[in-house]
């Protein structure tokens, strides 16, 4: 995390010093420290939770990778896409084909999943260039249906409508299926998946963060805000859009590969519109065009229902298959989720990230208020 420091210190030379820089330098480093703390917590997390939550964590982190990708396309470049499921699927089947049919190591099929899905994005991207807004959204819905059709019919790779099994990642002697142990510390299958996903997520976030600090990120934002103005200013709109498409699909591919491998078995019907929608909800709820937005969105969309499922199991008025009860646990959590989604977006349209910022600002104001009287008191003493 030394990059931010360098970044502004060089910006610093450019603007020739000033207290503002120092402050922002500290700011950058506060962020660095926070990131470090979050990272450490993320690594320790699975050891502190139940098996249920460990599994849920895997789904959350894997989804976060996919959401991070979608945010590059939709959040940062403004290209609404409901086609994410197609790219997730492409990644999944690449993993299945290379890891399953050809028994290759995950060190190969994970990146391959990204590449294949990315290439698919490079093919789809250009055709989407002429389309705007909702037209693009619905064409990408078409992409999902077409991809599903292909998945069902390319039996050799997808196993056909019956689906196919996928291998657990293997790196040399390390086989995720069996878990492993470092010294006395046992690491289960779920934990291995979690850490692998976490690592990939971290790399992905680093990548996106770098993009957003270079001209590519600015180009994307410019295209999102006013395409034509961007073009006139020298932004290559077409290239920017396609680039965004490729990055987004590649990340989706990796996420899909992990997801499918973790489930161990996938059927073509799994890569449907609802998954795409889920991902869009993630980036919107999390807060678009922000680094942490997709992650927080994944936590909200997957973690919240899981939490509701977890707690509502013990509520007496809920039926749980043993008869009785008025409303099922699932229906309850679905309703609560829907309501929370609505309320949340009405209260904080900028998503979880926006909420965080708001809280932060309040915190700062509070600190500011607390400091001032002290200062004036000092002045008083001096004057006497």
């Amino acid at each position, binding site marked *: 995390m030394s990059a931010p420091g360098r970044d502004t210190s060089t910006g610093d030379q450019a603007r020739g010093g000033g207290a503002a820089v120092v402050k922002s330098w500290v700011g950058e480093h506060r962020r660095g420290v926070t990131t470090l703390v979050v990272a450490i917590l993320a690594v320790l997390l699975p050891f502190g939770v139940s098996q249920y939550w460990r599994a849920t964590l895997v789904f959350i982190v894997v989804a976060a990778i996919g959401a991070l990708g979608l945010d590059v396309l939709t959040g940062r470049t403004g290209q609404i896409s409901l086609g994410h499921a197609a790219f997730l699927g492409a990644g999944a089947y690449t993993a299945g084909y290379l890891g399953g049919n050809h028994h290759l190591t995950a060190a190969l099929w994970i990146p391959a999943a990204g590449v294949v899905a990315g290439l698919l994005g490079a093919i789809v991207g250009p055709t989407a260039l002429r389309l705007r807004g909702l037209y693009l959204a619905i064409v990408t819905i078409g992409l999902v249906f077409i991809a599903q059709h292909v998945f069902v019919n390319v039996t050799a790779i997808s196993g056909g409508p019956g689906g196919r099994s996928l291998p657990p990642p293997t790196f040399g002697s390390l086989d995720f299926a069996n878990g492993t142990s470092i010294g006395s510390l046992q690491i289960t299958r779920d934990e291995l998946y979690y850490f692998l996903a976490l690592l990939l997520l971290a790399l992905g976030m680093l990548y996106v963060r770098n993009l957003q600090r270079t001209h590519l990120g600015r180009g994307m934002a410019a295209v999102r805000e006013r395409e034509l103005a961007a073009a006139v200013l020298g932004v290559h709109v077409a290239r920017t859009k396609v680039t965004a498409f490729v990055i987004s699909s590649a990340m989706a591919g990796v996420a899909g590969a992990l997801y499918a491998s973790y*489930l161990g078995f996938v059927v073509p019907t799994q890569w449907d519109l609802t998954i795409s929608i889920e991902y869009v909800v993630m980036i919107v709820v999390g807060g678009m065009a922000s680094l942490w937005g997709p992650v927080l969105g994944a936590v909200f969309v997957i973690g919240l229902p899981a939490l509701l499922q977890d707690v509502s199991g013990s509520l007496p008025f809920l039926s749980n298959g043993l008869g009785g009860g008025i409303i099922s646990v699932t229906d309850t959590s679905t309703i609560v989720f829907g309501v929370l989604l609505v309320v949340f977006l009405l209260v904080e349209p900028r998503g979880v990230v926006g909420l965080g910022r708001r809280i932060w600002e309040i915190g700062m104001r509070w600190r500011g208020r607390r400091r001032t009287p002290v200062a004036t008191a000092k002045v008083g003493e001096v004057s006497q």
Partner: protein
Amino acid sequence: MRRSIGRTARALSLAAVLAVVLSACSSNSSSGGSTIKAGPGVDVATKTITLGVLTPETGAASVIGKPLTAGQKAYFDNLNAHGGISGWKVNLVVEDNQYNPQTEVQTYNQIVNNVLFMGQSLGSPTTEAVEQTAQSQNVLLGTAAQDSLFTTQKINAVIGTPYAEDVANALFYVTNTLGKANAKVGIVYQNDAYGQDGLRGYTAAKNAYHFDDVGHATYNVTDTDFTSQALAMKNAGAQYVVVTAIPTAAAVLIGTAATIGYHPQWILQGPAWSEYLISSDGSATGKQTAVAPALAGAWVRGFEAQWGDTSVPGMSQFLKVQQQYDPTQVPDGYYEYGYCLAIMEKALLAKAIAAGDLSRAALVKDRTELGTVDFGGIMPAANYTPSLGPVSRQTDIAQVDLSTNGFLKIIQPYFESSAAKNLSAS
């Protein structure tokens, strides 16, 4: 007013049940100096065994999951009321898998530490998603799905006849039992794992009995119109049409065919049937649906005995249990299926208890050496051997009869075809 009282009553009873379950979970495997080897979900102190149930309680598949779970639970409740398995009681912890693989994985992990094994895991893609983990943890799965591939892994404790064998048997019935050697036969199947398995049996039967295969048609589970499929079969001149579908689809297909004046002998696969296709509330008293006449006479092949047919040895006991624990239950094959699933699991547990080893590993081993389990004729007896493979290859054929209770009349009791015998699991 009365409704709200009913609610509280239900809530209380449920709370009671929960209390039991929770206590069972909280203090599991506290082996107080007893001689028995106990895995998770086994409370030696109170002699209770907890099994997990992962079943769809919401969404379209809940139509299957609810009655199936009810039947399973009714059997165990009755068992517990009558001294259990040599003093051991069996509790169920039910989670809604929403027929969704991701949810299945989550719910599996939610309860796996509190259960000895999964007394039920309903659905193919769902069960597949936890198989790997289950194998590594030696957690037996009471798999409620008839896809042949589940019969090949010892982690799946299945009952009943796989779809493929089922279809092969039905076509044997046509070509041999009825002697229609060169009948014109077609198949309409759902384009997914279930349909594929049906097609597999169809092809096997075709190769074995050389009937005139006049056409195949596929549909998607979301389809609302079946004109093209009906026309395809009509134009092909199919006299017998195998329907590997879900109930709503089967109804639309057959209804559409009737409208265009096409009336072949329909052969519905078990899951294509639902009493709700005939009556608004599934019972004989309910209002008859518009498609009911079109469905009358269709064959439904499956492996559950005709509801209420007391010539079946286990039936009267079954009905007694159902009357006592689910008086409102309408005649339903899935209820019978769940009941039989419980019978198999009881046999399994009995073996383990007798051997004094209720560990997970032991149960996985026991599943392969369980031998024959008799369901009192409610389902064909299942045979569990180390060589694995289908536990039953028998099928019965019922005819839709609007006057019978449950609307199904058995016209051909359990039988097994040569083609089914020779079918190799996927």
